[in-house]
């Protein structure tokens, strides 16, 4: 069972990764990235890292990729396709990718494959559980953990600041929100009391549903 799931998940992961760079339609590219991430989560499950698998799905497939899908569906358009790159990028990109691949292969062949004939590392039942990970984060890896959380806080505040600055620039044309509020409906409209007929009905008949 384990090898079967492993091969299905790894083939899916590789196919998803290839799809991301090979598909011309950006929406399908994003979707194949989602497929790739889900297959990675399945591989994590096989490695007894169920917390990591859940985090992978929640954070990446359910959070980050949702925003990708959002933007691509609005901006990318289904009919448009990405054009082929040109110029020096065409030469530089394969060189970079090739060097990266070579480095990965050296690292893999140099270390990971020593254990290929054995049963793998011994793990306890609690390995990869949320409790275990939480303890490690708050003891052994406390400093990197706190630094990462500080970085996230800075990023969050930065995002709020950027969003606020953009709305502050629209001085000439009043923001839609304020314009809508200045013509606020009479008090009591849209309430249950209005529907029940205690006061005159504003803006036409109250519909069903």
């Amino acid at each position, binding site marked *: 069972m384990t090898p079967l799931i492993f091969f299905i998940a790894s083939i899916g992961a590789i196919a998803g990764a290839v799809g991301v760079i090979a598909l011309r339609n950006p929406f399908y590219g994003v979707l194949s990235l989602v497929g790739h991430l889900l297959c990675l989560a399945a591989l994590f*499950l*096989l490695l007894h890292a*169920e917390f990591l698998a*859940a985090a992978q799905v929640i954070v990446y497939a*359910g959070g980050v990729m*949702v925003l990708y899908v959002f933007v691509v*569906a609005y901006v990318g358009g289904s009919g448009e396709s990405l054009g082929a790159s040109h110029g020096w990028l065409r030469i530089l990109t394969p060189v970079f990718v090739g060097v990266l691949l070579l480095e990965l292969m050296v690292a893999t062949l140099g270390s990971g494959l020593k254990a290929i004939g054995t049963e793998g590392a011994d793990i306890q039942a609690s390995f990869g559980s949320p409790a275990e990970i939480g303890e490690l984060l708050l003891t052994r890896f406390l400093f990197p953990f706190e630094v990462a959380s500080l970085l996230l806080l800075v990023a969050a505040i930065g995002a709020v600041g950027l969003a606020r600055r953009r709305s502050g620039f629209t001085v000439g044309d009043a923001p839609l929100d304020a314009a809508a509020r200045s013509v606020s409906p009479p008090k009591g409209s849209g309430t249950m009391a209005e529907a029940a007929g205690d006061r005159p009905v504003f803006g036409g008949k109250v519909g069903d549903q």
Partner: protein
Amino acid sequence: MTPILATVNYSEPWWIQIIKALVIFAVGLQLIPLVLLAERKMLGRFQGRYGPNRVGPFGVMQPLADIIKLATKESFRPRTSVGFIFMAAPAISIITAVATLAIVPFGNTVDIFGTKVGLYGVDPSIGILYAFAFGGIAFYGLMLGGWASGSKYSFLGAMRSAAQLISYEISQGLALVGVVMLAGSLSLTEIVDAQATQGWFIVPQIVGFVVFLVAGFAETNRAPFDLPEADAELVGGYITEYGGGGFTSFFFAEYLNVIVVSAITVTVYLGGWLLPFGWHTPGLAMPFIVIGKTCLLIFLFIWVRATLPRLRYDQLMSLGWKILLPIATINTLATAVMVVT
């Protein structure tokens, strides 16, 4: 070789797993037509009319008639739709809804003819995160359905549901952190066990309960948060172009999600299979207690739908981000201080 799922407390014999899967699936599916009928009957009563009363005695065969009508409909799709994704989207919705049903604990481990059986589908160590993971994937069902329909109404409905789901998922998760801290575990069965000694978590976590329930209404796209399918402005939202089987699947998934959210709320806040006043729960009565409490919460869902008008889109967003999220955060911090001291 050890079974691959043995380390996630799932080491029962394979035949028990299959029987459990079939029973949970069958019971879960049987609840859907009942909820459907109850909703239509009660909505009728709330609005001073009878509701369905033509098919069978008191209209109880109405869901069956609905299913036959939907199943015999012609299956068609718009010319602008993307065929493969258009067909896959309802399936994604159903698969995620059914998969989430698996972690609802209907009872503790009991002896059935000398065999220890846990009355739940799975009890993984990540517990409630499992539900959130599938909730994250469920988004793609709605989103792809709306996008692949090739219709502006569907697309806008899907976009709304996307924004709504990610906004309320955060509050929902944060509201649950309080419970997880009190129970000291993510596993749903252990959360219920903790409530046997500490009392039901709705008492110390009443704020979290309200936030979780409101976010649950939004997550399941139910009134007053049913903006993705606001009939007046978006026709039917992401399901506009679906008929027959596809529509049935989305409909089915929506009601199954209502059942699952109610059942998880029961488990986390309302003591799961525990009876009030410290009464002892007999072993095999546990599933009935859980289902009974779940039905009460489903009634609350229907009640709210009959009572409250639909929110406007900006109201929905400011409720999620400016009210629920701060409340949930403060609740989490307060609970953390309470647990540590």
